């Protein structure tokens, strides 16, 4: 199961967040700050999967933007890793060459929330669904 989906830049500013398990707002900020700190501390040669507290973080870096997904132990790390990329490809197609500002400036960042339903990754059978954001 995916616990949360985050887009945070190197400065630690959250660009997009979606939690699939209820976490209090003040705890979210602490978690986000900690997560990005953990991700920043790792070099490119290191593994993209991190054990963090009682769950795992899967992260991918695109320029200055980190996409981090929190999962529990039942998930396949590599599948989630590729899911992130799939998501970015869809954004790219949607904005025709996506940038960090696209996500933050556009109201669509909120709109994209809806594409990530509570259903775990494998629902995304491919580009198909993501290229047609659901309403």
């Amino acid at each position, binding site marked *: 199961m995916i616990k949360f989906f985050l887009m945070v830049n190197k400065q630690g500013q959250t660009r997009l967040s979606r939690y699939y398990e209820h976490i209090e707002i003040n705890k979210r900020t602490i978690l986000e700050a900690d997560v990005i700190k953990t991700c920043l501390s790792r070099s490119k040669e290191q593994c993209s999967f991190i054990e963090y507290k009682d769950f795992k973080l899967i992260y991918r870096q695109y320029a200055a933007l980190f996409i981090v997904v929190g999962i529990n132990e039942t998930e396949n790390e590599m599948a989630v890793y590729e899911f992130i990329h799939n998501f970015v490809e869809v954004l790219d197609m949607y904005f025709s060459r996506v940038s960090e500002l696209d996500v933050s400036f556009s109201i669509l960042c*909120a709109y994209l929330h809806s594409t990530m339903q509570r259903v775990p990754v494998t629902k995304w059978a491919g580009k198909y669904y993501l290229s*047609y954001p659901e309403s």
Partner: protein
Amino acid sequence: MSDIVEKTLTALPGLFLQHQAAGGSGVPRVSVSSRLGSLIRSITALTSKHEEEKLIQQELASLKATVAAPNTTLRLMKECMVRLIYCEMLGYESSFGYIHAIKLAQQGNLLEKRVGYLAVSLFLHENHELLLLLVNTVVKDLQSTNLVEVCMALTIVSQIFPREMIPAVLPLIEDKLQHSKEIIRRKAVQALYKFHLIAPNQVQHIHVKFRKALCDRDVGVMAASLHIYLRMIKENPSAYKDLTGSFVTILKQVVGGKLPVDFNYHSVPAPWLQIQLLRILGLLGKDDPRTSELTYDVLDESLRRAELSHNITYAILFECVHTIYTIYPKPELLEKAARCIGKFVLSPKINLKYLGLKALTYVIQQDPNLALQHQMTIIECLDHPDPIIKRETLELLYRITNAQNVSVIVQKMLEYLQQSKEEYIIISLVGKIAELAEKYAPGNEWFIQTMNAVFSVGGDVMHPDIPNNFLRLLAEGFDDENEDKQLRLYAVQSYLSLLEIENALYPQRFLQVMSWVLGEYSYLLDKGTPEIIITKLYRLLINKSTTSETKAWIMAAVTKLTSQTHSSKTVEKLIQEFSVSLDTCMRQHAFELKHLQENVELMKSLLPVDKSCEDLVVDASLSFLDGFVAEGLDQGAAPYKPHHQRQEEKLSQGKVLNFEPYGLSFSSTMSSSGCTGRQSPAGISLSSDVSGNSAETGQKETNSLKLEGVKKLWGKEGYLPKKENKAGSSPELQPIAQDSTLVENVDQMIMKKDQSQALHHSEEEAEKQRLASTLFVGLGSESAVSLLGKTDTVSHKFRRKSKINDTKNREVTSTHNINCSSFSPLSNAPYEDNDHLNSFQDKEDIGLKKCSLGSEFLESGLKSESLTELHLVENFSACSLSPPSLFEDNSMEIFHPPHPTLSSFANEISLTSSLLEELNEHVHSDLVELCNNEMLKVSSCKIWKDDCLLLVWLIVNKSSLELKNMNLEITSTENFKILEHPGFCFPVIEAESTKSIQHHVQMEKLFTEEDLSGCVKYKVEEDPYIQLEFSITLSLLDFIRPMKICTEDFGKLWLSFANDVKQNIKISDSQANLPFALKTLQQKLRLHIVDIIGNEGILACHLLPSVPCLLHLRAHEGMAALWFRSSCSTLPDYLLYQCQKVMEES
């Protein structure tokens, strides 16, 4: 997907853009001109967190004003919502806007509604109270003719929905499964998946429809249904074996590229779908050769097809390997999977290496040879610069640990621990090390040293079980007495040398372990050492960083040691110092020590050497105080009254003036003897509030329990005096520098292995080889058993003795003896009543038959509250008074299958009995009408089953119309637990028909009487829901059942219960004879009469599900002495209250 829906959906985001672009100029793609844009820009421009906070607070204030203003348009509201979402994302709560989000979803046009729903799903959580307000909107939108609205409603349901409102939308969503549009069907399946997650039993009836969804012609719908299946199969794989074929076919099609190209991701067909299917097949095929057989082909094909070297194919391969090793093994497939793992492990890509290690960890228990194949890679991973890889490798090593390689592996783990700061990692690793050390320790020294390392590193974050287990291990020892001594001695020596080090700081838990061991086992050292140890402990005691909990441990150790020395200056100093300590606990300990020291004999018997494993017998009922209490009562002291009784009396006193003269005042001896009482075990003196032997002074000799055989011992650290100090026989002390041993050990092992190693490796290579041979020693096919030996206890180095059981048994026998002796006066008592009893029993049997035939009895007979068991004594006692009047007695309650012609309830009753066969077998109350209107009537009936209380609800549709969507829901309270789901739903109740529902109720919290309330809701045609509320009173007695035990068992149980309550109550003349009193109790309280001896009776009952309570009753001169005992502390009080009530009433 239908074109129209598709177009509408893709157009929506466009609408957003247009909308905002219309607001102003700027970059065409990005709507910079909007308020949100300016907000984001100003935040990005800020430099400090503080400024950001100020700005956002300002923004929130203005938003608050805007959303609250009455003239705010929906369009503006939508814009506000977006900004609120942004503020929440940054971590600023904006709860004032939640209600407006719901409103927007309710009132807006498509776009506004969409934003409203989105905001709701982001703001609220599952249990938020506002969520209920959304239900109506969802219901409305689900019924809308606009597909987009239906889509939105289904989406929000699949994201967030209040569990208790599921019945309101469930039928609507079920309908959507047949919708002509794929997108609607798919979303309906997703919504049902959500319901399955939060309330599985509410969607049980639609399982058939899930199958239809699985076979849907649209891939999306099928894929969505897989989520439900994965979950259901995880819970109960055997129920879905028949679907294996379908899943295999689907996977074959997917792998074969039969899906539309749209599903491809980097030219891999639907990879996430494949992964999902592989997981399902793994679950289905586990331990099932026949099902596994079906999947071999498709697994083989999956492996073959995933040749492409792309990350996503690795993900699929990983899942394949996992499935292949989960299902019933097939050698060819295993071989291929192993090759696959090899590819992963050897890959230069770090993420793949990680996957490989993870797969190895999983596989290793079944195939240890694989670890041997990859041993060099594993060694490399151990020294990998990435700690995550190291960590995963350690996890792998943990699984292959055996007695031969344990020391190397543990050392590697400790090395890792020293670098790690992460608390979670420390906790889990420390736990694993402790487990391995306990299981496979090669020697005493190694074990102690390893545990020292565990305690120092794990410190105060580790699981408390670790030190506890360690101490128990030391204390209980193993089969070999000599070995035990060695281990303990070594522990003592190593702690002494650790404490030797100046300024060393140890975690508190470690200090506690040390002080316990030193206190307990330092006698093993040479004579004369206590003084040295006490000095060391004293130094710890005055250390500022020592917590008060640890101080208590140390103090206990000092106390133990003091009993072994003659006189100690340090102890004197310590007592002096702590007698004035501000810490009351320490002061108490100091005083205790002081007094004990004055009486050496007492101290020696209290604190014997090496007796920590002896079990203590604690007389929790404080029967040794009986004499004291009796004396007090003789002097005129008032008997003890439990709390609730005192309160009740207080209340009644408030109403009426007391004209009685006051009783005698407490005599002065009371207070002086109070001090002697204080000398009794301090640890258990808290139970004194339940003692109080009431007015049984005269009969004390005959009926009080004598526990003379039981030694009265002191609390936690009290011991039976038996053995003398054995310190003289302890072996020579060998001071050993800590830490070094572990390293030496490893070195030795490496050296040994080294000799056999080939010489032509380079120096570094040889080093690795050496490590490998130490790590993987004992692995391989011949030792496969020991690998799986995580569970096998034979390989346990430190096997615990079953000492506890022995002592337990002994204890039981001894209590049994006591029990016999204490009850012997009873059994010697004249047993004349017995004959009466038998003769009356015979008569009564005939009587019973008669009464079940007699029709006049039937009218009064449905009264309820009867247990078949009751009749015996009831009649027995009734006979002894006035046998002929037996059947006129209204309180004579016997259940009889209801007669159809009886009364207005006739209809329901016959239905009830036909519906519920068990009704005929069990005692039940009559049907009580709970609520009623022109359409419907709800009545209920309690069935007192032996093992539970069953509530039956009957819902009668009196009208000639169909009632739809009938819901019955019970409000949950903390007092009750309803074993089934508290809600129930009938889609339709036909005209003039009756439905019944059953609920098993359990008591969660003790109470005397509580209401259980609930409501029914229904619909007539398309009218809105009509709701009826009802409540039913349940009393404690509904949960009391007789406990049928024999006198002997009663005696045993009696002694094992610690909570007792005694009370004398006045009984009226009519009750003066014991049988009558017992009858009342049996009838009204459902107590089982175990035995009647003379003027004493013993009764037993239990509170469902299984909390026993025993009662001893003695009638004497218009008084009845009640004495309850139970394993539950509060139950006796409640029962006593009921008894009093019953006795007063009759």
